[in-house]
């Protein structure tokens, strides 16, 4: 990643320098545009809809929506460190930047994988909530082998369904109809009914 940007950056004094300045300016401008376009402010929240700003996130949104965890934890609860506030926003910013650049470059793969860093974060988050269930001796009778498995393996190597289901990939959910933030139409009733209701 760093290499990639280094190569892109023009050497001091090169003819490209001026062009680069102009380019930088436009990139910043574009950045603001992208920020608006990407509803960046919404990323500061824990609202999972922030993540569906990108269509590539709709399969994971939808699978989460249909998972046992929907009522308990949304994206950030698993994918962002929850140990302290600073860490959380830092991780989110880095993650967000990464996603945004890949997305803008249209380089998203058909099947997305968590990077190693993310995996650690997620594993820690599973443990954060389930620590008692997976560590207490007294639950050994209730759930076998958890104490060992906690350290040796990733939770989702067994709990494959949690929370995105067994099948992954961009087209695993055919009609990615998620409540897009761009689609903020508020009525849940057809217009004829709305008129009728108003006329009363």
């Amino acid at each position, binding site marked *: 990643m760093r290499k990639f940007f280094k190569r892109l950056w023009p050497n001091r004094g090169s003819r490209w320098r001026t062009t680069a300045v102009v380019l930088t300016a436009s990139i910043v401008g574009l950045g603001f545009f992208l920020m608006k376009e990407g509803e960046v402010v919404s990323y500061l929240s824990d609202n999972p809809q922030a993540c569906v700003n990108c269509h590539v996130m709709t399969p994971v949104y939808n699978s989460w929506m249909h998972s046992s965890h929907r*009522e308990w934890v949304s994206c950030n609860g698993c994918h962002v460190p929850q140990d302290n506030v600073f860490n959380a926003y830092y991780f989110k910013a880095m993650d967000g930047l990464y996603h945004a650049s890949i997305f803008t470059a249209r380089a998203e793969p058909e099947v997305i994988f968590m990077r190693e860093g993310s995996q650690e974060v997620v594993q820690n988050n599973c443990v954060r909530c389930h620590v008692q269930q997976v560590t207490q001796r007294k639950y050994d009778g209730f759930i076998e082998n958890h104490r060992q498995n906690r350290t040796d393996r990733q939770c989702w190597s067994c709990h494959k369904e949690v929370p995105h289901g067994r099948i992954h990939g961009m087209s695993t959910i055919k009609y990615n109809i998620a409540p897009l933030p761009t689609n903020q139409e508020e009525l849940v*009733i057809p217009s004829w009914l709305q008129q009728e209701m108003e006329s009363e």
Partner: protein
Amino acid sequence: NRKSEAKYQYVPQVDIGENEVRNEVWGENYPKEYQSWLQTSESSFASYQGGSAMRDMLEEDPRLVVLFAGYGFSKDYNQGRGHYYAIEDIHNTLRTGGPKGPGDGPMPATCWTCKSPDVPRLMDEKGIDEFYSGKWADKGPEVVNSIGCADCHDPKSMKLRITRPALVEAFDAMGKDINKATHQEMRSLVCAQCHVEYYFNKKIPGKEGVPYLVFPWKNGMTVEAMETYYDDLEFTDWTHKISRAPMLKAQHPGYETYLTGVHADRGVSCADCHMPYKSEGGQKFTDHHLQSPLNNIANSCQVCHRQEAKKLMTNVYERQQKATENRLKLEDLLVKAHVEAGKAWDLGATEEQMKAILNDIRHAQWRWDYAAASHGASFHSPVETARVIGGGLNIAQEARVKLVRLLAELGFNQPVPMPDIATKEKAQEFIGLDMEKLVQEKEEFKKTLLPKWLKEAKAREDAMDSKEVSMLDQ
């Protein structure tokens, strides 16, 4: 922008109109949902008390015939089955009788409300009051598509939407705005358009005489709140033929009872269990085969519960059986109370003497029905269901204690002999129904009027074209 791409990753085949009633047209754009919707036509699964198989409730339990004496449900009452059959079943039921043409038959047009996407279309075209007006037979040629896409979806965005005014009005009456519902709530509210207790209010100021569909939720949705609502209105569905009690019919308060259960409390929606995700060839979509989740435990319950399917099934059956046990006791008491009240009339009881008794019978049977007709409730909310039945048992017996005292006063101090209602036929004979005539009329209707309706509808729909989406539109 790129975000909207998501919405149209698929290639729409047709442009679906605002009032597109033909499910197969929607199906061209959404074949998987449509294919699974078609499966609601399956009718082979039977569970302990539910499933999609045809089950004649009156045959399974002839006591119901006595409970409903003087009312349509004593003629014919089946367990609900798949959405695919909504139209067919309302054609076939003896409750709608054998109309000979417009203006004829026992039922109002309002009966169509929960059976078809033709309903929102007609309401849009004619107005709501006009839709509710007239006889069931008047709109026969207009309502022909079974419950489908347009009932729950906005054709443009495919977002869930509420198409039935009664639900919107009921929210209004409770001081709530249905447009504030969350996405997750909508996944239950679309069902709450139909799977709810209702009545026909013919006395709405300005709409007098129109059997307007109303959900009686103004005071709340508990069995007591709705009872007070009806008592305050002095509303009565029918007068019982034997006891002459002013009865209430509870129709499937599924949503109301579901709300009192632990699943609703934890944010689990109807669609989570009855329309879970399904995988086909590596793709996931919402299974539109709405059915008993017991026929689909792996995709529904097991998303959240790791227990074996058999165990989960047992959990459901256990709760249903416990509810049934006391519900049947209550049923027995109600049959006795009706018959005993009939005896009291025979012996010359006065209105004055009967008043409190009949009111008890009304309230007890209302509780029984609230628990019985909300078909899923013994699982959706077993504790509330048991509470309601317990209340009913108490009131039914209260009626009987009073009845015994009255009968003694009238000179009859012994158990009142009970009729033989061992079978549906015997029970129907006991309450004086001429079943042969009813069946005969229905047959006549199916031979003469019904084919006309269907022909007329076909002609109308054939004339509607589906707009293929041109490449340019995309």
